[in-house]
C-alpha cells in the first residue's frame, strides 16, 4: 500500500531537457513579443501616466488664443482626382494653407459650414509649397502605361507650351532650359503613336476666342464685356465658386488641351481611318487642375460629335513631374536624347501659341489675331513685343490702338488673390476692359502646380527664367501670328470651315454660355461667396 502511493520521482534526462527547452521557448517568445507593447520598461515607476512624447512644429507650442501665422493644412476631397496626400510625411507646417489663402484666396474665402463639397480649385500650388512632398498630384501614370502597352490603342500625346521650358530641370538642367526637341524624342521613345503640340491648339483657341471678342465688340454677339479667357481650369472653377455671376463673361471656347483632344478624335481619326473609341489621348500639362478638367461632364465634345457619349476628349493628364518620372523609370535621359519634331497636322504652331505658357501670353496672342480681324492687316512688327502685358506684376493693364476698333483696354491677372479687386470691379460694372486674361497660378502655366519642384523654390527667379525662354523663342520665330499658322488654315479649310462655325462651335466650345448659365442657377443657391 505504501509503495503505490509514493509519487514517481525519476525524471529521465530526456524529459528534463525537453522541459527546459520548452520553458526556454516560452520565455523567448514572451520576451520578444512583450517588450514592444510598452514605451516604458515593464517594471518601473508605476505612477507614470502615458503622456505624449512626440513633436509638433514650433508654431503650435503656444496657448491656443495666441495668434499664429498659419495653422493646419488644406482639406482634400475624399474622392478628388487632383490631389493626394501622405499623412505620414505631413508635418503640419501650414504652408499649403498659406498659399491657398494668400496667393489663391480660396481657403478662408468660403462660407462655413461647408455645403457638400471641399472647395478646391485644383491649381496645385500647395504641392509646390509642400516642403516634405506630402502633397502630390493623383498619379495617373498607370493608366497611360496600360494604354501604351495595349496594341489596339492609338495613343496620342500633346504637350503644353510651358512644359518645354521646365522638364529639363528634372534632369539636372538649369531653370528655363529649352527641351522641346528632347521632350518629343522622349515621348516617341516611350511609345506614343503621335506627338502633337498643344501650341497648335493654342493657336486654334486664339482663332475662336479673338473671333468671339470681335463679334461681341461689333455687336453680332450678345455677351457681356469684358471677355475673360477660359484656358485656366482652376480659374473657371474659382469663378464657379466665388464669382458665379461672371461666368457669362468667360469665353465659351474650350481650353487648348480640350480642343486638341476633340480634333484628334474627330478630324484626325476620320482622315486616318482610326476608330475614335480606340484613340487614347494623353496631355502633358504643367497643371493639376487639368486632371479635374478632363473629368468635367461637358468635356466630351468629340463624343457628342460621334453620338457616343462615352468618348472623352482627353483620357489622361500627366503633370510634368509625372512625365519626368515616366521617362526616368524607362531608363531614358533627356540630356542625351536627340531633338525631334512634332508630328504633322497638329504639330506646327505660331509664337502666339507658344507664349500661352506664361502670364499675359494668351492675351498678347489674342491681340495679334484680333488686330488682323478688326483692321484687316497684320499687326506691325514693333507691336509684337507688347511689353505692358509681360512681367510678373499681379495685375497688368494695357491699352492698344487698333484701327477699326479704337482703343482696346485689356488686363492680365495671375495669382487670384490680387485679381479679386478686378473681379469685384467687373461685378459692379465699373471695369473699363474689353478682355481680361486670368491664370490662377503666379506666373501663369510656367509656375503651374504640375511643374518640377527641383532646382529652385517656387519663386519669381524661377518664373522669370522660364518666361524669358518662352519670349526669346517667340521672338526668334518667323511665324508669330496665330492666324498665319498654315496647319490652322488647313484645318479650317478642310474641316471646321471658319471660326465659330456650327461645327467649330460644337467641337471647340464644349460649354456654350447658355447651358453654363443654367448650370450656375442650379448651383447658385449652394455655392456662395
Amino acid at each position, binding site marked *: 500500500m505504501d509503495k503505490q502511493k509514493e509519487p514517481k520521482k525519476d525524471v529521465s534526462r530526456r524529459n528534463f531537457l525537453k522541459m527546459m527547452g520548452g520553458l526556454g521557448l516560452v520565455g523567448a517568445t514572451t520576451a520578444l513579443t512583450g517588450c514592444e507593447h510598452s514605451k516604458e520598461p*515593464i517594471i518601473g515607476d508605476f505612477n507614470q501616466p502615458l503622456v*505624449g512624447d512626440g513633436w509638433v512644429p514650433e508654431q503650435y507650442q503656444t496657448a491656443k488664443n495666441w495668434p499664429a501665422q498659419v495653422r*493646419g493644412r488644406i482639406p482634400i476631397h475624399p*474622392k478628388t482626382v487632383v490631389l493626394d496626400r501622405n499623412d505620414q510625411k505631413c508635418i503640419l507646417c501650414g504652408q499649403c494653407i498659406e498659399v491657398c489663402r494668400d496667393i489663391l484666396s480660396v481657403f478662408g474665402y468660403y462660407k462655413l459650414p461647408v455645403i*457638400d463639397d471641399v472647395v478646391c480649385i485644383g491649381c496645385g500650388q500647395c504641392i509646390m509649397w509642400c516642403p516634405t512632398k506630402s502633397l502630390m498630384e493623383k498619379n495617373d501614370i498607370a493608366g497611360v502605361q496600360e494604354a501604351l502597352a495595349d496594341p489596339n490603342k492609338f495613343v496620342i500625346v500633346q504637350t503644353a507650351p510651358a512644359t518645354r521650358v521646365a522638364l529639363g530641370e528634372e534632369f539636372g538642367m538649369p531653370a528655363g532650359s529649352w527641351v522641346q526637341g528632347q521632350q518629343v524624342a522622349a515621348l516617341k521613345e516611350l511609345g506614343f503613336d503621335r506627338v502633337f503640340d498643344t501650341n497648335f491648339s493654342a493657336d486654334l483657341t486664339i482663332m475662336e476666342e479673338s473671333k468671339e471678342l470681335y463679334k461681341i465688340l461689333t455687336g453680332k454677339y450678345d455677351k457681356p464685356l469684358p471677355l475673360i479667357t477660359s484656358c485656366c481650369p482652376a480659374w473657371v472653377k474659382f469663378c464657379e465658386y466665388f464669382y458665379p455671376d461672371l461666368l457669362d463673361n468667360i469665353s465659351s471656347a474650350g481650353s487648348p488641351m480640350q480642343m486638341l483632344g476633340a480634333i484628334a478624335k474627330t478630324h484626325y481619326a476620320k482622315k486616318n481611318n482610326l476608330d475614335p473609341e480606340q484613340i487614347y489621348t494623353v496631355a502633358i500639362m504643367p497643371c493639376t487642375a487639368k486632371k479635374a478638367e478632363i473629368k468635367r461632364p461637358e468635356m466630351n465634345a468629340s463624343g457628342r460629335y460621334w453620338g457616343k457619349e462615352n468618348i472623352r476628349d482627353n483620357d489622361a493628364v500627366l503633370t510634368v513631374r509625372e512625365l519626368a518620372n515616366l521617362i526616368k523609370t524607362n531608363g531614358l535621359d533627356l540630356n542625351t536624347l536627340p531633338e525631334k519634331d512634332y508630328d504633322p497636322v497638329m504639330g506646327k504652331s505660331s509664337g502666339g501659341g507658344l507664349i500661352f505658357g506664361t502670364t499675359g501670353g494668351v492675351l498678347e496672342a489674342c491681340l495679334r489675331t484680333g488686330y488682323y480681324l478688326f483692321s484687316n492687316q497684320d499687326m506691325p512688327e514693333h507691336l509684337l513685343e507688347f511689353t505692358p502685358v509681360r512681367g510678373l506684376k499681379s495685375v497688368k493693364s494695357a491699352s492698344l490702338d487698333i484701327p477699326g476698333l479704337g482703343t482696346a483696354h485689356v488686363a492680365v491677372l495671375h495669382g487670384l488673390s490680387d485679381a479679386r479687386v478686378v473681379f469685384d470691379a467687373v461685378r459692379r460694372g465699373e471695369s473699363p476692359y474689353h478682355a481680361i486674361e486670368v491664370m490662377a497660378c503666379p506666373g501663369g502655366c510656367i509656375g503651374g502646380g504640375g511643374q518640377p519642384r527641383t532646382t529652385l523654390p517656387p519663386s519669381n527667379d524661377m518664373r522669370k527664367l522660364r518666361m524669358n525662354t518662352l519670349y526669346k523663342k517667340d521672338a526668334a520665330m518667323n511665324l508669330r501670328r496665330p492666324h498665319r499658322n498654315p496647319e490652322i488654315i488647313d484645318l479650317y479649310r478642310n474641316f471646321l470651315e471658319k471660326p465659330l462655325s456650327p461645327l467649330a462651335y460644337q467641337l471647340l466650345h464644349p460649354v456654350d454660355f447658355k447651358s453654363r448659365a443654367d448650370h450656375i442657377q442650379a448651383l447658385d443657391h449652394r455655392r456662395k461667396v
Partner: protein
Amino acid sequence: MSKGVLVDITKCIGCDACTVACKMWNNIDFGENARFHAQERSEVHDKNAFMLDYKNWTKIILHKPEKNGEKVWRYVKFQCLHCIEPGCVASCFATALRRNENGAILFYPNLCVGCRYCMLACPFDVIKYEWEKTFPLIAKCHMCSTRMEQGQAPACIGVCPTNVMTFGDKDDMLALAKTTIQNDAKYVPHIYGEKEAGGTAWMYISDIPFEQLGFNTDITTRPIPEYSYDFQKYTKHAMVGIGTLLTALFLYTKRRNNIAEEEAKKKNN
C-alpha cells in the same frame, strides 16, 4: 481648475490636421494606409460608430445628413470626451485610469492588467484595446496632459486652421456654448456633453441634430459611477460585516468542536 473644450461642428472642413497632430505628438504608428487616411472615412450613421481604434485616438468622420431636404456634409471630430465623473475610472480596480486636476483622464500603463472593464463602462465607446498585440493594454486620448500643464492647448486643438475647437476653463466653455447657441439661430439648442453622462470636458454644438451625426443621444444624464455607487458604497460595510460573521462562525464552531472533543474524552475516561 477643470479644463474644457467646445467643438463647433459647423466650422470643420475635414482637413484631418488634428488627427495627424495627435499621431505626431503621441508618436503613434500611422499604419499601412497612411496615404489614404483622408479617404478612409465612410458614411456612417450608426450610434457610436466613430471607428476609433488603438492607433487612432481621434478621428474625423464625414457624415452626410439631410438639411432642409438637401444632403449636406458635416465633419465630426471625435475622441475621448473626458467625463467629469468618468465611468472608466470608477470601473478600474487597478487604478490604471485616473482623472487629474485639469480634468483629463490619464492612463497608467504599468498598472493596467488588461481586463477591459473600462471599455464596458465607457458610454461613448472611446476606449480601445490593442487587439493585435500579444499582451494588449487599452489606449485612449489623454488630452495631451503635459501640454495642458504648460498652459498649452492639446495638440489637436492648436493645429486647427478654422478654430473648430475652443480651449479654456470648463465653465467658460459652457457659457460660450450657451451664448453661441442663443445668438445664432442655425444651431440646434443642444450642447452635447453638457449633461451627457453627467457632463463631459469636451462639448459639441452643431446645426444638425446630434443623432444624425453619429452621436449617441440615447444616453443617461446621470454620471456612470453613480449607478454602481448605490450598492458598491456598501462594499466596505459588507466586507467587514461578512468577515465578522465568518469569524464569529469560526469561533463558534471551533468552541463547539472543543466542547464536543472534551465531552468525548470524558465519556471515554
